[in-house]
């Protein structure tokens, strides 16, 4: 596996609670039995992967974004900045300019177009990153500050940290946020392969089809893992067949698996068929990416 370029696998889903973290943590731990691997929790609003591992904290840092800071002594109250901020992060209230840091997208427009330089950009803490080591597994997670709206920048900076520190690790797994909007796009756009986790229910199917549209828009190779297989109906499987989407694995609906998950434990040790599925998933990702690159 060392002859491969780093393989970046993102694990995503339209619907929340389908099993992204379960798959991410089990897949990473399975790979780490033999190879160095980095698992990155990009679900920065509610990172949960860390609950499955007890490791040694090797690095911790605050993550910042740039926001404008009003310099009252220079400001002429010309009214340009509140007019041009598309995000309503800068408003004028009487003789004052107010900045709402949570709404700011760090586009710099107000700062650069202010005729008297009264809005210099300053860093603001938007979250924190932690890096753990558990034997051959590196685990990186970021947490967004409460009330902060801009997950995208934190996700982007976390990916940069991983690229800078673990560029030589052969496999990186990115546990992505749910949904189909900007944070998911940011978490998956650099991946070599995306795994969409779903459940065989009308809700799983509906949100899977949205996630599929998103991945097709990003032109990403992707496959589906059906979790809790056995509940609901066959519509998800039928949909994947009709759309020519590979179903990489079916993880059975099983009370013992649910119990292990509920107590924060990995499941694949106790389930040979799940371990086999993880091996199949990894093999498929490697073959697809290698085949595509050749």
């Amino acid at each position, binding site marked *: 596996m060392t002859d491969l370029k780093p393989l970046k696998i993102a694990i995503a889903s*339209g*619907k*929340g*609670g*389908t099993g992204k973290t379960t798959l991410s943590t089990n897949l990473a731990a399975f790979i780490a039995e033999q190879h160095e691997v980095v698992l990155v929790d990009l679900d920065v*609003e*509610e990172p*949960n992967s860390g609950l499955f591992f007890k490791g040694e904290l090797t690095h911790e840092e605050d993550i910042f974004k740039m926001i404008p800071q009003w310099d009252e002594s220079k400001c002429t109250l010309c009214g340009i900045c509140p007019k041009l901020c*598309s995000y309503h992060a800068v408003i004028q209230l009487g003789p004052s300019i107010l900045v709402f840091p949570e709404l700011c*997208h*760090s*586009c*710099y427009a107000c700062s*650069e177009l202010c005729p008297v330089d009264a809005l210099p950009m300053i860093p603001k803490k938007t979250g924190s990153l932690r890096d753990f080591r558990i034997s051959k597994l590196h685990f990186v997670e970021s947490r967004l500050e409460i009330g902060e709206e801009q997950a995208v920048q934190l996700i982007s900076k976390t990916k940069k940290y991983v690229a800078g520190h673990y560029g030589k690790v052969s496999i990186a797994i990115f546990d992505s946020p*749910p*949904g*189909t*909007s900007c944070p998911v*796009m940011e978490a998956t*756009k650099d991946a070599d392969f995306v795994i969409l986790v779903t459940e065989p229910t*009308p*809700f799983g199917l*509906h*949100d899977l089809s*949205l996630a599929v549209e998103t991945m097709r828009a*990003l032109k990403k190779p992707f496959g589906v893992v059906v979790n809790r297989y056995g509940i609901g109906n066959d519509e998800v499987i039928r949909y994947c067949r009709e759309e020519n989407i590979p179903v990489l694995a079916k993880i059975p609906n099983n009370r013992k698996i649910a119990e292990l998950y509920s107590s924060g434990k990995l499941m694949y040790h106790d389930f040979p068929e799940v371990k086999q599925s993880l091996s199949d998933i990894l093999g498929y990702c490697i073959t697809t990416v290698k085949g595509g690159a050749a």
Partner: protein
Amino acid sequence: MKEIVVISGKGGTGKTSITASFAMLGGSEVVVADCDVDAADMHLLMQPEFNFAEDFYSGEVAYVDQSNCISCGKCRDVCRFVPFW
């Protein structure tokens, strides 16, 4: 009007199920809003008749007027967001 909001930190915990069930208890006086705009699922449970639909617009996208563009590259330099292509 009293407003009740159903939220959760974690996904897939049952917001939609609880909200839809709760709404059914209120009879005809209840208005239900599915604000999970990323992946709205409530309609699958409630199966409502749609009596109104409209598109939603927000923000603005720059349009390049090719007849006036001199390819100076300034727009690319000032854009802080890395585009998808």
